[in-house]
């Protein structure tokens, strides 16, 4: 097994990830390296499901930050934009469909933190991935967004 996959699987067994599972915040759906699908619980909203699945790209984990896109776990394909989380302010920006919907618009995402967003390192240091981070950094950010007042349900 590759070192990045081995480290990721070890992190899944550790306190921070298992704590989130125990609290009902997220759950592992599948691993098909270098990808893993994890579902994150959302606050109850009319017409919306109670969770959203995200497919994480994890090559070179944890040296490199993950990238994530909303995912249809049953179909095994990207979630259509209309079924993404929707809302205002923080949620609207994070799920804006950046780069044709292939990643979330967040500083912890390696595809979003491109040369055009170098300022994020100073503006949002709490969301910046480091080599000592684990997958719960990203999951906590998603969970917080889906539990916030800015989250209104399906994007539509």
């Amino acid at each position, binding site marked *: 097994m590759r070192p990045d996959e081995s480290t990721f699987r070890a992190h899944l067994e550790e*306190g921070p990830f*298992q704590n989130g599972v125990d609290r009902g915040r997220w759950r592992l759906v599948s691993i098909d390296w270098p990808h893993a699908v994890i579902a994150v619980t959302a606050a109850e909203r009319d017409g919306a499901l109670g969770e959203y699945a995200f497919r994480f790209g994890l090559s070179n984990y944890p040296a490199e930050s993950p990238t994530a896109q909303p995912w249809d776990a049953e179909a095994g394909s990207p979630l259509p934009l209309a079924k993404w989380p929707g809302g205002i302010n*923080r949620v609207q920006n994070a799920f804006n469909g*950046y780069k044709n919907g292939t990643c979330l618009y967040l500083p912890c995402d390696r595809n979003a933190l491109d040369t055009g967003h170098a300022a994020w390192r100073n*503006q949002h240091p*709490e969301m910046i991935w480091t080599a000592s981070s684990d997958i*719960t950094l990203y999951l*906590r950010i998603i969970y917080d967004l889906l*539990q916030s007042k800015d989250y209104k349900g399906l994007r539509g």
Partner: protein
Amino acid sequence: MNTDNTKDENGVPHELQLFVQGEGLGEIRLVKVDGGSTVDGLIEAVAAKFGGEFATAVAAGGMVVTLEDDDEELAQADTLKKAGVRDRSRVHIHRCRKVKVSVNFNGETAVDNFPPATTVGKVKKWADRKFDIDKVDATEHALQLCGTADRPDEDVHIGTLTNNHSCSVCFDLVPKKRVEGTSN
């Protein structure tokens, strides 16, 4: 006849998985211990597994074990079962009996003492009340360790955040900012 091979004939699980936090552990730790272990045995098991600052604190003596959001000390000679520790229980191990918590917001500071097993989530709710932040705005603010960009998970115990046996933690209550920039 006992047909459950995860427990012994007295119904005690062979193994417990516990969420352990405490002095020098740095984060929530998932620890497996023998189901028949004592509270003292738990401390030893955690020290053996993680070493470092936690083991040093154990060697110095005076460590106390409590359950999450509680300050009643568990008797260390008791079995985990007798002490009320179950599978997936959340426990805290620390030398501090109380942790002085300061929270800064809008030029004001609120201070109080909490058991080290108090969660950041509970401290956050206290801070929201002290600064009269309503329920809606409360979700848009977070506790951040003073002088850092670190915003601990709400399930982290404040005892886990102390340094060098200081028995104190300082937070800033900060707004969660929208991520903005040019989208291509």
